[in-house]
């Protein structure tokens, strides 16, 4: 498979008229794992929602392309079929629709009419993936996210990621609310995806997740921009010293609290 590249250029995004992203630049290729870190309310989740096409997020300036195709011109489902995936921080509950039906419909939407996945291979893959993620076998027959615990929802996002095999995935705080055992399982799932046909943006507050998933690049986001980029060592320094030294280095006043945005699912 040819490699893919997601290019984000000078991206500005507003929510309900308020500008949150103020010119984000980022390039992610398949085969690469990028971590985006930063204090709360600096626009990390906004970036992921804008790339996927959340109805409340308005791109006011800039471009997002996947292999030269204009992502921002696409409908949400087209973005997904083009190869993007977002593991959401607050996944929706869909009553009355089983996880298995949902996954099969999603897979078949990608494969197209006449090329649907046969039932047996689907079940086999689902069983294997759920086993790897140490999920209860009944999760396939439960309604999508309904009554799931926080940890179950996160695993379910990774289950979808692994079943759908996108080119580029964004994981929005996939570690939040997970205990250490669940975190290891989720990391195991993500690491199993690592190959030259898969690239990933991992959004997180904490270095903790990066103990289990080693990123190739680490970016720090503040005030709606990526203000610093480096290798895995940057994450370690952030863990040890916090964000103040960056603020000092860049002359940023601490105003992140004012930038706080309600994070929509």
């Amino acid at each position: 498979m040819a490699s893919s590249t997601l290019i984000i250029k000078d991206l500005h995004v507003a929510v309900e008229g308020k500008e949150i992203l103020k010119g984000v630049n980022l390039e992610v290729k398949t085969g690469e794992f990028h971590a985006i870190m930063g204090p709360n309310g600096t626009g990390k989740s906004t970036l992921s929602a804008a790339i996927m096409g959340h109805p409340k997020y308005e791109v006011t300036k800039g471009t997002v392309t996947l292999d030269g195709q204009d992502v921002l011109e696409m409908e949400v489902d087209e973005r997904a079929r083009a190869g993007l995936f977002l593991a959401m921080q607050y996944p929706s509950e869909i009553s009355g629709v089983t996880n298995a039906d949902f996954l099969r419909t999603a897979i078949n939407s990608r494969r197209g009419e006449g090329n649907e996945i046969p039932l047996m291979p689907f079940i086999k893959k689902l069983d294997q993936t759920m086993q790897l993620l140490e999920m209860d076998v009944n999760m396939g027959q439960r309604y999508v996210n309904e009554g799931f615990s926080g940890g179950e929802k996160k695993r379910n996002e990774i289950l979808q990621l692994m079943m759908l095999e996108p080119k580029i995935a964004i994981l929005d705080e996939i570690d939040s609310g997970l205990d250490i055992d669940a975190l290891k399982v989720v990391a195991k799932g993500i690491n199993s995806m690592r190959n030259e046909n898969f690239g990933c943006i991992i959004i997180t507050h904490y270095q903790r997740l990066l103990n289990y998933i080693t990123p190739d690049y680490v970016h720090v986001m503040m005030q709606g921009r990526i203000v610093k980029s480096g290798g895995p060592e940057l994450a370690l320094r952030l863990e040890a010293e916090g964000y103040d030294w960056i603020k000092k280095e860049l002359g940023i006043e601490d105003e992140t609290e004012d930038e706080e945005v309600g994070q929509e699912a």
Partner: protein
Amino acid sequence: MTIDVQNPFDQKYVESFSAGRSEPEWLKTFRLNAYERISQLELPKPDKTKIDKWNFTRFTEHVSEKAPAGGIEQLPEKVKSLIDLENAKNLYVQYDQQPIYASLSKELADQGVIFTDILTAVKEHGDLVKKYFMTEAVKADDHRLTAFHAALFNGGAFLYIPKNVQVEEPVQAVYIHDENAPLINHVLVVADDNSSVTYVENYISLREASDGIVNIVSEVIANTNAKIVYGAVETLAKGVTAYVNRRGVAGKDASIQWALGLMNDGNTVSENVTLLVGDGSYGDTKTVVVGRGEQTQNFTTKVIHFGKASEGFILQHGVVKDKSSVVFNGIGKIEHGASKSNAQQESRVLMLSEKARGDANPILLIDEDDVLAGHAASVGRVDPIQLYYLMSRGIPKAEAERLIIHGFLAPVVNQLPIEGVKKQLIEVIERKVK
């Protein structure tokens, strides 16, 4: 003098109709008494829907003369798909007003189970029918349409399960509506002490559109410790005005569970009432509806608690599209003395278009202190965030909406006890919401 039933269908007509069918004297008298009441009684008043201009009672032909060619093998595919011909041991099929097929397994017949058309039942099991026919559940003088029904009913079935008999396989009835003569159908299901049965019925129109009248009364009697599961799928055509009244009476420790897929394309008023008469009785109603085109539909589900520690549950989910309207009235009533009872209800309407109208009215009427009661109701549109989530997995918008709608209706659809009927309901929903 009556204004509603046209001249040819006067008192004399009722008398000769009854005589022509060799009905017993008590039934003829019953019909004539009811006939008298038609013009004196008012129409029912379903909350939030005005029905005084609807035609429930005017028609030109009372019984269709047309007989279907051949047996059930000759029926159109859409009817045959409802029936598992090879395995249907307990099946009744009625074409307009005429019985065209009836079977009951020898095993059940030997145990005293009766399953036959209503006319045969009044002749061969007169005492049994007389005991329950419009005496406990629905009364002829409830209102104009029940009186009309009692006077002029022209089809239906009778199912009787004797004491201590457990019927394992579902019993099925299919009522086909074709010609313009009104289908005034009476279904009487009686489960005697400690018995159990699952009954499933289909009402289906052969025509795409017709000017018909359908008036259905179902009476469902569960005596002490009996258990009845009652499933129904209605797919009456556009233009058919339907009045549907399904009423159950549950004795001590008895249970009545309804699973109703009400998919008519014409104007419909439907009442489903469960009377929890005995202590420890249980009633559960699950209703699913879809409104489309310009049809108006009103669904009232009511559970009345008389017995102590009786439990009643109402769940109604409806999808409304185009310019149609759907009203859900849910009524939980706990009478004085019905202590330790539990009345719960949930009504939800999902609107798919700007001009669709949905309404959900939960009502709790409680005349006893030591009880539990609760209600939930909502009327809304498809949640854009849910759509976003599904689409973010690559599912096109139309398909995502389809999933949400099916999911919304699933709690009821999944309850239907016969696989073929469930499959058919899913297909009907698919067609109606497209």
